[in-house]
């Protein structure tokens, strides 16, 4: 039977056909493709099969259990690097060995399967008759107990690899709000979400992706809120992925996104469980990947990239103010250098006179035309930024000092760049740091350069041109069927409450219609502004 991957582990594979003989079932290449999945009655054969399959690696441990003095009647197999040996020795080996002793004392004979099973005291223990499951279990940090003359093996969960503990997320920092961030462990991450969403409607579907990595991927959604067709679409798209490895969420993102050739992201990612929960509550699906703290969410709209989870924790006037600030920062990050270049090259009359004189004085003797100057400065800034990110921390500081000194001081003093250009580039940089999502910042960082070229060649007309084309492009984008600019275009007034400003929580009565494709309430109909009783009650 050819196994189609990825498959959904939740639905366990049914017991397959009788054995042909275990030795023939294994092809020693790449990955495990058994012709026949069942275990052999012979303990010796099962062990040999495993050892052949793993190629006699040093960390595949086999501990034989001798229940009678002459016969080997059982074996415990585990991969040493993945398993906590304390659990194995305390909860598997010790009871099994004592079982043997009791049998010998009482002289009853070999223990029954039930006795055998009951003597294993580890929590996560289940039976399997499938060789494939045994192999997958071993690779997943389980210990396997084989018994002679039995078609069943016991898989004992005893993961022993070190995990990073739950720490504050690095990429999405908030002042007020949860300090928990996802880790590299899928189990921990699922738990962090479950902990916040105590409802049986939370569905967690596990898929295994990657022909070599066999990475677990969890698809999360709220069955009573999410749009079933979006969920089905997400499941379908993920199932279609057939690659050797899925190492980070980026692998999946690029394989399932709607518009692979756009600069704008159509799938969001988050490192924060509270953000993921909020997204699930709005009817989105979450995709969590084992081995990365970043979970994907879809469908997304453009505006989401200019929102932060803290918008919902701060009081609404401040949150609204910050949102407006972010929109301005987004525009500045995209267009500020272009506006500067267009103004000094073509539209000097637009600049107020004192500023014009100051700019003219600053530009006096600068050897490059403004557009070239801007391109040089922006490229230098991007280089500095990349150097600062990638360098080890002590060297990174040196990079920033060199950058600040060379650009801020020496270049202006030498008259190579104008001080007004440095101010513009610095303002652009600050604006781009205001954008909370690095993915959306990437779009502005990259689009800045074509905009600069347009501004430098045909001035404001070019900026207008570029902006119009960008808008047309944005209007064509969709994320899992949801128009990218919704709920603004197409307009849904209830949805706009949470776009440019954030209205108070008690006024956000409906769930986002653009994501769910239906009207639904997230609050009871009579929710309104709080009315404290007068006269102290």
């Amino acid at each position: 039977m050819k196994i189609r991957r990825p498959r959904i582990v939740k639905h366990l594979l049914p017991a397959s056909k009788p054995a042909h003989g275990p030795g023939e079932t294994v092809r020693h290449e790449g990955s495990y493709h058994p012709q026949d999945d069942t275990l052999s009655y012979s303990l010796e054969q099962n062990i040999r099969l495993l050892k052949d399959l793993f190629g006699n690696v040093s960390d595949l441990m086999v501990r034989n259990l001798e229940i009678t003095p002459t016969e080997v009647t059982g074996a415990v197999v585990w991969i040493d690097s993945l398993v906590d040996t304390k659990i194995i020795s305390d909860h598997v080996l010790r009871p099994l060995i004592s079982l043997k002793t009791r049998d010998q004392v009482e002289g009853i004979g070999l223990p029954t399967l039930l006795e055998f099973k009951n003597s294993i005291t580890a929590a996560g223990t289940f039976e399997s008759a499938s060789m494939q499951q045994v192999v997958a279990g071993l690779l997943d940090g389980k210990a396997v107990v084989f018994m002679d003359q039995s078609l069943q093996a016991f898989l004992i969960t005893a993961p022993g690899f070190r995990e990073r503990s739950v720490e504050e997320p690095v990429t999405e920092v908030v002042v007020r709000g949860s300090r928990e961030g996802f880790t590299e462990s899928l189990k921990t991450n699922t738990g962090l979400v479950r902990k916040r969403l105590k409802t049986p409607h939370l569905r967690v579907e596990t898929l295994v992706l990657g022909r070599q990595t066999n990475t677990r991927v969890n698809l999360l959604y709220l069955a009573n809120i999410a749009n079933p067709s979006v969920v089905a679409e997400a499941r379908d798209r993920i199932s279609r992925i057939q690659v050797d490895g899925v190492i980070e969420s980026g692998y999946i993102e690029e394989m399932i996104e709607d518009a692979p050739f756009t600069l704008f992201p159509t799938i969001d990612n988050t490192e924060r469980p509270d953000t993921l929960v909020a997204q699930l509550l709005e009817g989105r699906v979450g995709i969590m990947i084992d081995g990365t703290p970043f979970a994907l969410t879809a469908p997304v709209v453009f505006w989401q990239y200019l929102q932060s989870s803290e918008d919902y924790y701060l009081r609404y006037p401040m949150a609204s103010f910050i949102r407006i600030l972010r929109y301005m920062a987004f525009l500045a990050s995209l267009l500020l250098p272009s506006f500067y270049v267009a103004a000094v090259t073509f539209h000097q009359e637009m600049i107020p006179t004192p500023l014009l004189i100051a700019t003219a004085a600053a530009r006096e003797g600068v050897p490059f035309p403004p557009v070239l100057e801007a391109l040089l400065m922006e490229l230098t800034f991007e280089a500095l930024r990349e150097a600062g990110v990638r360098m080890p921390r002590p060297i990174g500081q040196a990079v920033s000092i060199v950058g600040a000194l060379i650009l801020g001081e020496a270049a202006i003093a030498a008259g190579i760049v104008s001080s007004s250009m440095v101010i513009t580039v610095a303002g652009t940089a600050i604006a781009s740091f205001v954008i909370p999502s690095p993915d959306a910042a990437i779009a502005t960082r990259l689009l800045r350069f074509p905009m600069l070229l347009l501004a430098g060649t045909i001035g404001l007309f070019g900026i207008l041109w570029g902006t119009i084309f960008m808008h047309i492009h944005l209007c064509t984008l969709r994320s899992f069927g949801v128009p990218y600019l919704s709920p603004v275009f197409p307009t849904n007034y209830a949805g706009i409450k949470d776009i440019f400003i954030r209205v108070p929580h008690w006024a956000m009565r409906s769930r986002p219609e653009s994501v769910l494709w239906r009207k639904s309430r997230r609050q009871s109909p009579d929710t309104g502004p709080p009315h404290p009783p007068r006269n102290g009650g």
Partner: protein
Amino acid sequence: MMLKYFLILAQTMILFSIVGCWDALDISRQAIVSAISLDEAEDPDQLLVGVQVIIPQKVAGGLGQQRQEGEPFANYFAHGKTWSEAMRKIETQLTRSLFLDKTRVLIISQHLAANGIADVLDFLLRTPQSRHRILVVIAKEAPASRFITIVHPLEKETGAALEFLLANQEIHSQTKPISLQELMGYLSEKSVSPVVPVVTLTADKKKLQAEGMGVFRHDRLVGWLNQKQTQIYLLLRNKAIHTLLTTQAPIGPPKPVSFILERGTTSYEPVIREGRLLMQIKIDAVFELIEQRTVIDLTKPETLKTLSARLALQIKEDAQSLVALAQSEYQSDIFHFGSYFHRKYPEEWRQMKENWQEEFFPMVEVQVEANVDIYYTGKTNRPF
């Protein structure tokens, strides 16, 4: 497919390089003009045009940038049959192209203005480079070119200096700046005449100062309003802000008392009766007493009443004489009487409007009524 996209991209890029840059001019290649002077030349067919060009390095410069010494501007002059011809001649002396968009002030000499300004303004109205908010001023008793050479200790360029000077005077109702746009409005109408701010040199010929306003008839300068007349004129035009008036104390020794206008409205009631034109002007003003050089006891209501009656009388007399001056000597409807008649008597106006200023305006009988209240007397009541 990729080739197609590449070709589209390549064509777009070529398009940019063909179309673009036709008026791209870096600001460091432009000479920013701050002020323009217009004089009549010795040859009556010629104009003397002067421009003041800002030298940015000498104007701007923050920390770390050494500001260069010397005058922050340079002046260039040239003769020409037309303004544009003169501008071309100026450009022969310049390494950069003239940038007129930021011009703040146009100074016209009094003799040129007396011969009419409509024809010389044509260039400025026609060129797309100029802005119609350029302020127009008249140079009195000195050639206009002299004014753009004066260095101002507080401001860097003459354009800014004159603009701020006029704005500062406007607050005190000693002048009323007029932009090219507004001047165009006046010139396009036959029944009303502009009043343009006047600048002149101080006695030592080293500084310039605002001095009242110049009265036009159509586009010709016909006379002057001194500072006091300007104040009354602005009060009559409802443009007065902080007018300072000084009058003689009516009680005790004849010593001066000064008032500042708090608020004032002037209303006009035109009447045509038996073919005679009558204009009833009513001035309602509230003043604050700001200084007295007498020893009047201001705590008594009767004193204030006497004072306000004295002030009202003075305003009334000044207004009457100003209107008479405009009617008889200048024949220039600077008060917009015509528009009031136009509104109330549209039929009659149709017959009058062609020759309004020459024929009808001087014949208008004027009745002035002034009501003055003194509401405030400052922080102290009793004199020492």
